């Protein structure tokens, strides 16, 4: 990690024009993003969006869901009292497993993109 930092420092010696254009480059140091971080971010966004649908949006439709009953419990109520909570627990366990797989896939790789190498070797991993 300290190594990559050092290389980054030398790279910032570039001109002002380069710095202005830097945000256009995908794996630029200005973006501070690595394939590992992008994979992590994708997973996090997926989990949070799923949660927002399950825990924020669906309860708004409780009245409609209540038309159906499971074992005598209206579905809308069941959802808030049991089902939705169980879905969230499963989501957390799945996310944990998925992230663990990411962690292993990226273990030993560069922790940051190196400035000039366009890092073609990491492209397949990122595309997963």
């Amino acid at each position, binding site marked *: 990690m300290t190594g990559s930092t050092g290389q980054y420092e030398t790279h910032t010696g570039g001109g002002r024009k380069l710095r202005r254009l830097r945000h256009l480059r995908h794996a630029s140091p200005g973006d501070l993003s690595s394939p590992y971080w992008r994979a992590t971010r994708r997973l996090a966004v997926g989990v949070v969006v799923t949660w927002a649908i399950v825990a924020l949006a669906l309860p708004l439709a409780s009245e409609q869901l209540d038309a159906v009953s499971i074992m005598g419990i209206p579905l809308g109520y069941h959802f808030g*009292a049991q089902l939705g*909570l169980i879905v*969230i627990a499963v989501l957390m366990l799945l996310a*944990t497993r998925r*992230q663990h797989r990411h962690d292993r896939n990226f273990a030993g790789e560069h922790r940051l993109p190196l400035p000039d190498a366009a890092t073609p070797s990491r492209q397949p991993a990122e595309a997963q």
Partner: protein
Amino acid sequence: MSNLDRGPAPALTPTTSAMAMAADGLSGAIVLGLVGTLAALGHDGLALLLGIAGGWLLSITLVAPHLHHAGRFGTTAFVARRFGRTAAVAAGLIAAMCVAVLLAAEFKALALVSRVAFGVEPTVALAAAAVAVVVLALAARADSVTRMQALLYIPLAAALAVPIVLPALAAVGVPVPQLTYGAVLQSIAALELKLLGEELADPVTLKAYLRPFTSSTPAASLLVTLSLALGLAVLPHLLQRPTHAASAHRARLTLALGFVFLLLAMLALPPLAAAARHGLLANLVGADVSQLPDWLRALGAAGLAQVCGVDAVSVEAVRTACAALPDAPTRLRLHDIEIARDATLLALPGLSGLPMFLVPVLAAAIGAAALAAAVWLVTALRDDLAVPGGHAGEAGKATAALATLVAMLVVVAAATWAATDPADLMTMLAWGLALAGAGLAPAVVAGIWWHRATAAGAVLGMLAGFALTAYYIVATRYFAVPFYETWAAFSNAGFGAVADFEAARDVWAAADGAERTAAAVLLDTEARRVANWWGLRSIGSGVLGAGLGTLVLLLVSAVTPRPSGSARLLIERLRGGAKDA
């Protein structure tokens, strides 16, 4: 790397930490508050459960593992590293205030159970609890508190399971409450109709247990869920265990397992609340006024149960009060009986005819959970505040001493505030989480996910968010009359409520002497009904502050120079691959 680390990895397994976290998530105040609120609000209370679950989920995806990755930081330590000293002081103060509010709820829960089950005076119980928490938090190390709480999880979960497993066993011969839960809910709906038919319930005040959005609008429910989730995701006492795990994976595992443990017990809370509601409707409403059960009189003596507007201390008092009502009921009607929300769980054995030995059993389990949670809140706060600078030697010692001092002040403030009985337990807990969601969540989340977030943006964002939510909570609770008069145009109160408020104001203006004090109390009660912005409940006001805080953070960060130096190093480290997988 060593300069960013906080110390040697502890030897606790994810399972131990997870059980401790679950016990923390089932702290006395949470259990009593949730059961009471669920029983009172029915369907609308479920937004709270979804909010709690959401907090764990946001923590596991957006916060905890990343703080671990950055160097096993707690909330304040992370803010210190990422945004510098000023931001750390702001974050530390906000965290301390949020913890004080949550702690006050635990103290109140402790006072309540010792009053009901063991007849201890509230002031004595509060003082004893404060002393015990100070002593234990000073003496205990974080990992011993964790072990203690992990052990506590099992009796606590068992104590919560018994009152719903016993009836299921009696009804269908199988100890699975899920089999009878549906029947209980259906029975509640049928009883509501029956009582309305017999004029034992008031059609204006009765809220159908299974119908959604009777006590809050859909948007207000959503905001409550979101507000709880945001606050829970960034609070130091929930983050400390995962961020001290041996690896980032273990940090996630701790949280995920913790939630599974929590859920095992939390799934018992809606059935417990339904059982209490059912018992109230089936066994107490419609009873003869002169036949008050013993347990109700015990609650009445503790000031937790009122019948016909007076504390239900004796049959004589109640009979006189009921006879004095305009329609002089001879049978108890639903709106004649008022059992304090927070005492619902302790009233459950009496309400549904369960063996009464359950009351002290539940009280002991809940009291122990509340005490342990209080100790953990203080320990975690102390440890969270102690290391922001990460200094060694003299400076580190001074920071640690200051952190201990702040933690002790928080205990005193919380116990003092709890003695004034500010609100019901769930409201107090939700206030603490709303303040955390408004003050800490934008800065912590942006610090991890947005490399462009700057120190100035974080400081101003935290202060603006916290101030707005704190204003909303304090003003609607303690200064409802001026709040309503300032913001009357924003209130969503109906004509009836506004007319009641104006009538109360006229009475207050005309009264003098002792009458004026009584009129002021009435005026305040009426004002609290109408004082709001667009129907937003104070327990959901965290979203308001978080929104403002995020906006300020974005705008200020955009016009201040990019973070550099150590903040930049921290972001690189945070976003680097998983070396410890």
